[in-house]
């Protein structure tokens, strides 16, 4: 036992199915204030000055370390810094342990700032949202990295919080190749209180929104890699034994809440045929997360694995 509040089987199934976990207002105000102090202020807009220059200076002057990729996450931030304090919160440490196991590695981090219209007008640039993309590059692994998006101040809809499309994490795509997709049914925009964290499976399609407010929007992203198989790291005591398959298609009423119910809930954007492939891939991911190679939900893999051999 770790003593940490680990994710329950239902929370873990939801992450497997949808690729995100949202923890609202879990970082205390004093940590949020400390982080914003460490980040510092961006210079006011000035006619003719490129936005990139102001942003570059902010990144250079922020009290956030340049950290080599591949070091233990636990050593990435100085003791007592806002980011170390955030990662040490039991609810955060428990979620990290549940998703990527013990002692994950630090991959990279970045201070994402979106600027209000005055900056774009002053620099002569266009104020637009970021294209939807999947981070890094094509990733065919069953294992996955996790990215924590930290929102140290309240985010309104007008500020253009992170946009993401639940359930896209199992798609094998190449970064911004999908940028032509402007809107997808079921997309979500982060509107949240200060101290909110969004944990994303590294495959989730996302992008920054356009900031139409009168202040900058700050989000800090930390990516981490597992160092061991992500098997049975959540609170497995909450995993109920599956004694038989559920009935499928011909149902006389709603089914009771269960891991299967969570895994088999489609997203609004699912295509008719590939939506079924998503279910197959969710079952495969759940097999990995639980270490149970015989697991199935709604008979998808049982049917395919029946070779009817004599």
């Amino acid at each position, binding site marked *: 036992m770790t003593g940490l509040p680990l994710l329950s089987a239902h929370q873990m199934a939801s992450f497997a199915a949808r690729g995100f976990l949202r923890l609202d207002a879990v970082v205390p105000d004093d940590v949020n204030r400390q982080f914003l102090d460490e980040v510092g202020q961006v210079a006011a807009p000035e006619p003719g000055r490129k936005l990139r220059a102001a942003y570059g200076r902010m990144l250079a002057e922020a009290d956030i370390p340049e950290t080599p990729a591949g070091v233990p996450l636990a050593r990435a931030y100085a003791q007592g810094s806002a980011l170390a304090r955030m990662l040490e919160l039991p609810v955060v440490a428990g979620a990290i342990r549940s998703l990527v196991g013990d002692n994950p590695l630090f991959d990279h981090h970045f201070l994402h700032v979106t600027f209000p219209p005055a900056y774009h007008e002053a620099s002569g640039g266009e104020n*637009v*949202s*970021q*294209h*939807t993309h999947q981070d890094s590059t094509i990733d065919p692994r069953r294992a996955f990295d996790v990215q924590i998006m930290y929102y140290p101040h309240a985010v309104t809809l007008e500020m*253009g919080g992170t*946009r993401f499309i639940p359930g896209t994490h*199992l*798609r*094998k*795509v190449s970064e911004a*190749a*999908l*940028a*032509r*997709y*402007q*809107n*997808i*049914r079921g*997309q979500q*925009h982060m509107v949240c209180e200060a101290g909110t964290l969004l944990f994303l499976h590294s495959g989730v399609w996302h*992008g920054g*929104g*356009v900031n139409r407010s009168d202040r900058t929007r700050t989000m800090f992203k930390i990516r981490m890699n597992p160092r061991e198989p992500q098997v049975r790291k959540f609170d497995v005591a909450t995993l109920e034994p599956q004694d038989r398959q559920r009935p499928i298609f011909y149902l006389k009423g709603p089914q009771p809440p269960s891991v299967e119910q969570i895994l088999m809930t489609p997203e*609004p*954007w*699912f*295509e*008719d*045929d*590939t939506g079924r*492939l*998503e279910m*197959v*891939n969710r079952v495969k991911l759940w097999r990995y997360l639980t270490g149970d190679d015989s697991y199935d939900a709604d008979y998808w893999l049982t049917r395919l694995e029946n070779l009817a051999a004599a």
Partner: protein
Amino acid sequence: MRRQSVLVLYLSNSALDSAVVGWSRYDGTGRERHMAGDSEEPPYRTGLDALKDGWRLFQASQLNPHIPGAEFDVSYLKYEFWFEQLEEIVP
């Protein structure tokens, strides 16, 4: 002088009268600036509804055989339909 406006619809299957699951707009007249995340509801319920409203279909994605060994892989949205309207603008 004419300019092209483009509508891209992503449908739930290969039938043009199936439901829209994703959409994009590019307005060559410069009157509107569309971008990622700018609307929550699709402009049409189906691709056929776009035809009825005067959009002209000029490209549809192909149906390709599944690659052996990768039959269960999912990647890009599969049912992409490109529409256009030509609009007069005052130079």
